[in-house]
């Protein structure tokens, strides 16, 4: 499994996302409150660029009239037909058994280890003294 350096951390502040292509695959990486998540940027329904959609929360209801809204900013809603997926897992909420988006592990590594380790720099010139967002693929 190759690890790809995709950005210095300060280029991907909380609440933002970055779109890129890794090994021919369209990927989006999100920073949600300091945690990083990678998703395949293709909707399993009809193939829209899924990660262009808005980040919303999860509306659930135990009983009619009672609505719980959780996971704010952690659910991606497809820009076409609005299917919802959990950024953390790629799981769909309308048919979780059949549909999921491929999720890729993303995290931060210090520049020193990036320079040493089995990394491929995607779009980034790596400097030893900074931290980098890394995606495993």
């Amino acid at each position, binding site marked *: 499994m190759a690890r790809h350096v995709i950005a210095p951390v300060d280029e991907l502040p909380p609440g933002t996302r970055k*779109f890129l292509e890794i090994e021919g695959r*369209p990927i989006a990486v999100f920073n949600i409150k300091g945690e990083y998540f990678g998703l395949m940027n293709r909707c399993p329904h009809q*193939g829209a*660029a899924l990660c*262009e*959609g808005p980040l919303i929360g999860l509306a659930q209801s135990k009983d009619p009239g009672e609505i719980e809204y959780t996971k704010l900013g952690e659910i991606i809603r497809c820009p076409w037909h*609005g299917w919802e997926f959990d950024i953390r897992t790629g799981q769909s909420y309308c048919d979780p058994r059949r549909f999921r988006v491929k999720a890729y592990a993303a995290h931060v590594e210090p520049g020193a280890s990036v320079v040493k380790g089995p990394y491929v720099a995607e779009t980034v010139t790596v400097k030893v003294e900074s931290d980098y967002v890394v995606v495993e693929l």
Partner: protein
Amino acid sequence: MNIQFRESPEAASTPTTKTAIADCDIHPARATRTELYPYLAKRWQHHLEVYGVHAYQGMMEGPPYPKAQPNASRRDAYPPEGGPQGSSLSFMQKQLLDPNNVQLGVLNPLNTGQGIRNHELSAALCSAINDWQIDKWTSKDKRLKASIVVGNEDGLSAAAEIRERAGDKNFVQVLLLSRNVEPLGQRRYWPIYQAAEEAGLPVGVHAFGFGGNPITPSGWPSYYIEEMVGHSQCQQSALASLVLEGVFERFPKLKMVMIEAGFGWAPSLAWRLDKVWQRLRSEVPHVKRPPSEYIREQVWWTTQPMEDPERREDLFDVIKWIGWDRLLFATDYPHWDYDEPSRVLPAGVSEDNREAFYLGNARKLYGMT
């Protein structure tokens, strides 16, 4: 949260389909509120500024229900130069026509001048929309063909508009909406059918419209999702009315296209109609044949929204009844319930049927062969 995240990603124009297709339901939009003014007499421009537009129902500032995505459209369909989704020819070419190899695209503008109480204004706006379709769209891209928009509630002025455009190769059908003041078979609409038949143009009935009646037969629902499925109920009553008022009998060469209301319900409606017609035909002696015969001979169906049953065989059974020669592929671009051409038809369809579905039927119906 109707906010937009990023405008017009390049990823949107990734090619997906290689075979040529027809797209029988494309919605062009106006970039600005006043874009039609060049096609409207000063008198109507002033009228709009002073009085605005009065439809048969309230809540005209927006559609009756907020739609699932901004402007009921794909979030990735904002043109890079600004303006609402569907308002830029160059972006439509880049996002829809080129990558999907669309050979024929039929334009169905919505929010035009249809269903407006002031019939003179309605006629003027419809005529302006038709001029605008030629200027902005069909004359600039030969793949695009327009629908003649008519002031539907005034059959006579609508017929006049059709006659004026008849023979103009920019136009391939007449456009009505499914929600009207009365069911579509009623006499006030007959001049439209007569003029369309004379002109050899099919009449498309697109879901939607502001007829002033509740948008479902059981009243105003709570949710947009009910409006969406309600389109098929509305289309069913429109079609029953067309059959039972004798429109198909009176205009035997008339071709109707049911647009954006599904088609899975067609067989059951026809079966029910046939059954009650056998028992009650003395009430409607002008309906000389079983209703299903008129429907099968004179009605075509666009595919978006396609029924999507769990077993694809169920879908094929329905299509078998309707006829593979009666379906017209449509994306509904740029609307949010858009169907992606390469993903919409399940496997297991013969080459001939696929070709008819994606292109052949449309070319024949719209006289492009």
